[in-house]
């Protein structure tokens, strides 16, 4: 009992204290924001990057934006080349009609899913730790979906005919085929992109207002003033706002499941061995969340380091994300095993051949990269030492990203390259597609770094609302829970006021409201 959590003293250095692994608190939950922060210092911490004058952008960020802009420009050039020449610049051949175009699409759309999961599902489950990572996870979602959308819109061949995907009245009286999984996909991805933007923007408005109110620079005042819609933090507005946020979350949560389910239908509804399986929807959703959380970590770990946000994105957040990766990674591993079991147990020789061919056929290397990155890597997170080691987490998150790209490659290409007719068997080799993939990365990072530069990367109003000071009964550190006089007025949703465990830096807070 003497080893109470209060025994751990956090260092005063904001560069260090976010990385200290605290023991599990004996009751309640750990404080979400570390260090001696009040509301104002949270604002200062988050706005520092956004408010730096343009010419004083940190050099690292400048270099990053320039590099990503070069990648995005290359993508633009590549799209022009594709537009001019057509998909003949790819290595797609007769049985392998879908290759990197679709692999990249599924890869990017999958990455997006973690953002929605964090912003919607964790919100509905009242996981308050999400508040410090949801903003940039949502931004990641939007930019990833933009990349996915460009991959899938550019793979159609006659790109200028893409409007045929939408039900637009025309003189021929034709409508798209609503029974086709590919049409379902058009609706799913577009809905997902739009709803993600609405959700993200709704969350951003109060923080844009913060930037508007703090700046003296004319263009910023106009820019953030325009974006913040005249938000003034009125309680009457907050009530409708919170309800709208809740409704958007409630719709986004099933939406995120449906989107990747429908993406998996693109494969599963066909009759191709290796694609035609009922396990695809849950397996794709788990894989999407798995890869998305890995990407959140890939982005969050450098961001918290370079932007000085360790007090809000603490080691605890990273550990929680690693736990999600462990869970979803294990689900993905289970799905791999189950696919093999079903291939054997069904007794279907085509199915059996496809799976043996994946393991030992011409694309054996892709299969084994996928297996080692996706099945072995997440299992390391059973160990707390690894979960809470930032460097190892970062490296493993990159492995997961690689593994999940190869998963889509294995599913798409290895299932196609061995047709039912052996005379049409072929081997797919990419030609210029590497630039396609690199270009989408350029676009993604270009948008993301611009976001980091100009938009608040932490949802300030939400972080403030989960700080102990935000509780109407809070009367300063060291005070016992006050406010019993108010308890009668709104007692049913009364969160016990936090009591702080003694030492500097406030190691523990007990929040009795949940138990």
């Amino acid at each position, binding site marked *: 009992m003497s080893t109470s959590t209060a025994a751990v003293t956090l260092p005063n250095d904001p560069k260090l204290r976010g990385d200290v692994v605290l023991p599990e608190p004996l009751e309640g939950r750990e404080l979400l924001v570390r260090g001696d922060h009040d*509301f104002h210092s949270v604002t200062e911490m988050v706005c520092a990057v956004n408010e730096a004058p343009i010419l004083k952008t940190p050099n690292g960020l400048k270099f990053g934006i320039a590099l990503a802009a070069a990648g995005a420009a290359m993508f633009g050039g590549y799209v022009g080349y594709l537009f001019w020449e057509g998909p003949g610049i790819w290595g797609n051949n007769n049985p392998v009609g879908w290759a990197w175009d679709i692999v990249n699409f599924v890869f990017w759309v999958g990455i997006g899913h973690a953002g929605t999961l964090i912003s919607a599902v964790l919100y509905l489950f009242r996981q308050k730790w999400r508040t410090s990572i949801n903003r940039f996870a949502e931004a990641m979602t939007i930019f990833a979906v933009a990349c996915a959308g460009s991959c899938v819109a550019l793979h159609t061949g006659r790109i200028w005919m893409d409007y045929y995907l939408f*039900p637009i009245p025309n003189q021929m*009286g*034709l*409508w798209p*085929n*609503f*029974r*086709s999984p590919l*049409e*379902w996909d058009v*609706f*799913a991805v577009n*809905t997902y992109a*739009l*709803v993600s933007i*609405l959700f993200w*923007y709704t969350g951003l408005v*109060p923080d844009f207002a*913060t930037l*508007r*109110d*703090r700046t003296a620079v004319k263009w910023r005042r106009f820019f953030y003033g325009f974006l913040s*819609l*005249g938000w*003034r*933090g*009125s*309680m*009457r*507005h*907050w*009530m*409708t*706002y*919170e*309800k*709208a946020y809740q*409704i*958007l979350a409630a*719709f986004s949560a099933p*939406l995120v499941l*449906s989107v990747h389910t429908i993406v998996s*239908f693109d494969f599963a509804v066909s009759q191709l061995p290796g694609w035609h399986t009922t396990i695809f929807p849950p397996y794709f959703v788990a894989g999407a969340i798995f890869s998305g959380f890995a990407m959140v970590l890939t982005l969050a770990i450098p961001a918290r380091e370079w932007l000085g946000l360790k007090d809000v994105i603490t080691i605890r957040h990273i550990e929680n994300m690693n736990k999600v990766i462990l869970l979803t990674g294990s689900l993905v591993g289970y799905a791999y095993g189950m696919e093999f079991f079903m291939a054997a147990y069904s007794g279907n020789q085509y199915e059996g051949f496809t799976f043996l061919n994946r393991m030992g056929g011409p694309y054996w290397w892709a299969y084994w990269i996928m297996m080692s990155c996706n099945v072995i890597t997440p299992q390391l997170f059973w160990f707390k030492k690894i979960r809470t080691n930032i460097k190892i987490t970062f490296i493993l998150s990159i492995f997961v990203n690689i593994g999940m790209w190869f998963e889509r490659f294995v599913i798409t290409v290895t299932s196609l390259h061995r047709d039912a007719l052996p005379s049409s068997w072929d081997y797919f080799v990419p030609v210029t597609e590497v630039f396609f993939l690199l270009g989408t990365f350029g676009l993604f990072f270009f948008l993301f770094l611009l976001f980091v530069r100009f938009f608040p990367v932490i949802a*300030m*109003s*939400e972080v*403030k609302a989960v700080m102990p*000071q*935000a*509780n*109407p*009964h*809070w009367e300063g550190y060291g005070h016992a829970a*006050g406010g019993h006089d*108010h308890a009668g007025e*709104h007692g049913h*949703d*009364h*969160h016990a006021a936090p009591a702080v465990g003694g030492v500097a830096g406030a190691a523990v807070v007990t929040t009795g409201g949940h138990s």
Partner: protein
Amino acid sequence: MSSTKPWGLLAQYENPATLTHACSRVKAAGYEKWDACAPFPVHGLDKVMGIPATKLPWAVLVVGITGSTFMLFFQAWAMGWAYPMIVGGKPLLSIPAFVPVWYEVTVLSSCLTAFLGNWIMNGLPQPYHPAFASKAFERVTDDKFFIMIESEDPRFDSEKTKTLLQESGATLVEELEG
């Protein structure tokens, strides 16, 4: 003293506890045209202030059901009547195959309503508000808490209202020009 009637009074508070306390006093004094502003939604303050529940969910329900029904019938009409064509051996009215698009449009119409309804019901965008003229009010999106009482309120009395706000723990009381 300017001859025009002020728009109202603005009082600043330092933390959610004093704001909540002050709101209950303003409410008890019977004011109607008043508001509290905070950098984040203060827990339980809506009940103290007596803010009625928002009607937004009803708008979302109505538009959601409308959009959903429209899309189901639209798909049935487009696939079964307008340009009837058998694809993949499915019947013309193949409702299971219509479910994904039906579902997505339900989500889309509901979310658009929630998004637009939020701003419309709140009267935003509103580029100008009398409180924006106050220097102190710039911190409402940072770390300060405010109450404003409009002079339109029947109980408004520049002296009495000012005293009420000052006694309720305000660190600053300002007059806002209209």
